[in-house]
């Protein structure tokens, strides 16, 4: 037993998240949410300044 058995599900399988066929879509969604959060924080700062 040199190490744990290799993962049989290592391929770039579907994320299994409704609305997303590939992981690229999930990454893009996360990035877009990040941009939206930064914009929201900037607006929050400006509103309460």
């Amino acid at each position: 037993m040199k190490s744990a058995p290799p993962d049989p599900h290592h391929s770039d399988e579907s994320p299994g998240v409704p609305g997303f066929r590939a992981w690229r879509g999930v990454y893009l969604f996360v990035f877009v949410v990040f941009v939206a959060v930064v914009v929201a924080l900037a607006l929050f700062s400006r509103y309460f300044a």
Partner: protein
Amino acid sequence: MNTLDWLILLGTMLGIAAYGAWRTRDVHSLNTYLKGNRSTGWGTIGISVMATQASAITFLSIPGQGFESGIGFVQNYFGLPLALIIVCAVFLPIYRRLGVYTAYEYLGRRFDSKTRLLSAGLFLVQRGLATGVTIYAPAIILSAALGWRLDLTIIGTGLLVIIYTVVGGSAAVNLTQKWQMAVIFGGMVTAFIVLLVKLPDGLGFGGAAHVAGALGKLEAVDFSFNPDRRYTFWTGMLGGTFLMLSYFGTDQSQVQRYLGGAALREGRLGLMFNALLKIPMQFFILLLGALVFVFYQFQEPPVFFNQTEWRQHEQGAEGARFRALDEKFNAAFTENQSKIRAWLAARETHEAAAESAARAAMAKSQQRVQAVRAEAKAALVADDPHAKTKDSDYVFITFILDYLPHGAIGLLVAVMIAAALGSKAGELNALATTTTIDLWRHFRPLAVHDEARNIRVAKWFTVFWGMFAIGFALYAGFAENLIEAINILGSIFYGVVLGIFLVAFFLKRVGGTAVFWAAVTAQLLVFALFFSLKISYLWYNLIGCAACVLVSLIIQLLMTLKTSAKEIGRR
């Protein structure tokens, strides 16, 4: 703290530890012991990643940071989503495909055993020392604020985490972290609600946010290129991405959290969960600190929040000076409060000139309050050059103890201890795994097939690292700023380790010998610069990584040229 607080504190902490140990008492598989159950879902992995990163200091110091400097610290986390996307797309699939227990095991396969041992050794030194700080940092603050004995606080929390981490390994760490995070979220939301209720009548969240904003505490995003500013959008995006990539991609305490689970999907979704939630969570904790700042504009705070330290000086030979400072602060506070109320009244009139004049008067009176606080800190140093003058870590715990109802106090102290246990458990688990897999099994290759013996050894290494952390916390002196101490330790080693991994992933022609000597050279360079230059420690991440990558390319080129020359000579 009264009996109810103690019941809640001990009930939650001991209950979670006992539950974790009992549920995972029958772990007989090395894979489950080191990686957790194969059935672990993405939610558990995501919470476990979050709990390992969020130590007690996150919940003690960050509200204090919001109180003192505002919420701009949130920009420090701007690099996190991008870093986690890179980890999901590049690092994690490779780790899963090879079925490794540790990130350094991958380096052994990609390069050679000496590179694997070097990177595992760098991790053990850095994380072993940082674990001592992880247990010491909350203990010193809680013992000062609650009057507990520091040594007993360190030993008590240290032993508790050792017991359940030894019994159930990674499975117990995942399970307990889930419940500890539930206590943490419950406690922080409770503190937020109590804080809103205790604000002056009619102020509400909107009014409090306007006061905080007018006094410069709500500048969340700074797009300026001013190098004097510590936290800007650009430092967060450039430095932050780099730091988070090192931490999440190569630090075994994080890698171990997302290697478990039935499939690659679970780890990826767990990391994406963090990419989405981490910035809002840090924003919430910082906002809590900014609102505590507003609260203390209407309720008089102590002039210095580490009251144990202040009282010692007040009762000493120079006591009269400190009592006079108390009175001076009281007068400045009263004037400041009236100016804030005048500004709030001026806002209601919707007259721009009156509002602007009231705002200027408020800012001036706030400066006077800050000047008295600075004078108090200078007086502490004048009385004792070794006095600890950083009191922002004590702001939130002072608020909890002075203003939260009984029951909620016990819950919030449980939040701090749960966070300390959660992060320390993850670290101990990673230290034991790396020592077992990358060191012990390397020198005992015949024992590799004896699974029961491997688990026994991993348990003993967990005990060893736990006792090491307790001993380090008990006998070592630390820097005044504890978060900085952890970051400095990380920055000295992270850069070189990330450099090794970047070479492994992206420079396929570079071999083990080249990267090994490059890493040694880069680490020596970082040590030399650290002891001779006075630059920000964050730069050592970049220097270490860049030096490792560049030197490995140069050495590989020289080796290739030498081999080519030999082949030509033979012909």
